[in-house]
């Protein structure tokens, strides 16, 4: 029996996680002193964030290293106990780690493996089938489907240690999805993979989301992943929420500039008077201008110079994100 879908897949209110770490100065004297008294320091990894995810949503979770992304994902999957705040996933309290909760979620961490190293992935799959108590028919159908989508075919029969990083990641993802989780947490699933493999995994995540209506929360350092998959992004920095909304709005609200690319007949023209010249080669000049000035500068360029071609673009998403991270608080 399919359980009824709750109105929210994930609900987070004022979530906080504080780590207490001991620290000491370098040197022998400090080391001895620390034997007697340890200096404790609190680190606020997650500092009061709130957001919701509707069932079936696929959301990019962004932030620089140490922003609190992984800590949040670990709290959502039940590995970490929040210091304060409210948290529910599919109406469960994650840290209780109810078996019925664990059967409906999955956490994929790009830098860690769960497959048994020395045996073929197919054998690890069988073990997962038993642990998650997946009915035989469902299991066969899911394996078939995942094999097709991820092109696993021959990989499943090879010992995991003989697979390349990308091949292993595909098998890891398949193993994590055998029980068809309704909520999927992906922590850097494409890290260290080549561009082709990144694209393959990216399109797979999208397809999985569409086919099974799974809710997906994804962190990635590759903006291409986020652009391809997520309409909505949540940005955190220093454990605080910086932005929650459509990717397009993020670009709009955080980029105070536009990029104008002009192709000129005269290769030698100096365009410094029109804006900041980002690059200039073979008569192709890239200008960065304040957003409010865009129309006026474009007009002047067209009037003053022999322009062959002119385009106005938003800056690349990487640049926007960099700008977002550079800002402490909005």
């Amino acid at each position, binding site marked *: 029996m399919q359980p009824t879908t709750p109105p929210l897949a994930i609900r987070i209110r004022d979530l906080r996680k504080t*780590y207490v770490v001991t620290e000491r100065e370098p040197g022998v004297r400090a080391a001895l002193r620390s034997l007697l008294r340890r200096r404790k320091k609190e680190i606020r990894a997650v500092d009061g964030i709130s957001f919701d995810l509707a069932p079936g949503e696929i959301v990019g979770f962004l932030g620089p290293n140490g922003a609190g992304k992984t*800590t949040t994902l*670990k709290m959502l*999957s*039940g*590995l*970490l*106990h929040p210091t304060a705040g409210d948290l529910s996933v599919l109406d469960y309290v994650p*840290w209780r*780690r109810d*078996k*019925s909760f*664990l*059967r409906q*979620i*999955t*956490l994929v*961490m790009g830098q*860690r493996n*769960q497959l*048994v*190293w*020395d*045996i073929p992935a197919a*054998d*690890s799959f*069988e*073990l997962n*089938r*038993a*642990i*998650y*108590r997946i009915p035989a028919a469902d299991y066969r159908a899911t394996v078939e489907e995942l094999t097709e989508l991820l092109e696993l075919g021959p990989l499943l029969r090879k*010992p995991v240690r003989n697979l390349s990083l990308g091949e292993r990641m595909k098998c890891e993802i398949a193993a994590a999805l055998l029980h068809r989780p309704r909520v999927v947490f992906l922590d850097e699933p494409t890290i260290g993979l080549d561009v082709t493999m990144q694209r393959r995994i990216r399109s797979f995540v999208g397809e999985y989301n569409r086919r099974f209506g799974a809710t997906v929360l994804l962190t990635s350092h590759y903006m291409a992943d986020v652009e391809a998959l997520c309409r909505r992004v949540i940005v955190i920095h220093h454990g605080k929420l910086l932005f929650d909304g459509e990717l397009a709005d993020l670009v709009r609200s955080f980029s105070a500039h536009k990029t104008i690319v002009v192709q000129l007949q005269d290769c030698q023209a100096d365009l410094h008077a029109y804006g900041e010249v980002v690059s200039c080669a073979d008569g192709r000049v890239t200008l960065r201008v304040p957003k409010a000035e865009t129309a006026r500068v474009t007009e002047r360029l067209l009037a003053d110079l022999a322009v062959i071609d002119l385009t106005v673009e938003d800056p690349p998403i990487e640049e926007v994100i960099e700008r977002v991270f550079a800002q402490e608080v909005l």
Partner: protein
Amino acid sequence: MKGLVEIYVQQFKTTLASFVQYRAAIFIWMIGHVLEPLIFLVVWSVVAQSTGGSVGGFTGADFAAYFIVMMLVNHFTYTWIIYEFEYRIREGLLSFSLLRPLHPIHTDIVDNASSKLITLPMMLVAAVILAVVFRPAFHTVPWAIAAFIPSLLLAFILRFLIEWTLALAAFWTTRVSAVNQGYYVAALFLSGQVAPLSLFPHIIQVVAAILPFRWMIAFPVELLLGRLTPAQALTGLAAQTVWLAASLILLRGIWRAGVKVYSAVGG
């Protein structure tokens, strides 16, 4: 229950498949398991000879029987979980087991039992060879053999639970190898691996009997060799049961506390 049996079967297959990849390592590991009792056996045989044929009621042949059976019982009850747990926590592997709808102890039970099954034939061969060379004397009786089987099973489960609980120290300290070292030395003496417990001073025997050590290893050996009275055997089985219940309670409590710590600091 059916689900758990299925998990055990699958885990057994997985362990088996991983194990055959490490034939050489297993062989070397087993040599260690044979060498240790062999050294004690040789030492005690020499001591017995030089003191007129016997020490504390043990002749050379008695020592041979004792250490051959000790080798098998030790092999049957051995675990490597304390060593393994530290690695799991350090490498973040525990996180994966915590995210599965299954208590991680099940994996360890099957892992452990299946590795025993795989290595048992070789250990039996080693026992036969040692028996041919050292000519042990057995004074065993039928009822003792019957009582030996449950005592061995209880010993295995007890040792497994105790060592699994000790391994949980890894939640609080990154220096579990120190815990392991201390435990190993205590077990070496107090569980009769270095010498039969009856050769130790009375106070040591009392300590070994109060603590779980004797019941984890020495007791089944003494039982099989016919060195215990029926009353002593029954007392022993009762002591094993009590310790088993106690260690189960201990394990549950410490596991919960440990996971709480783990989920507070992150893995």
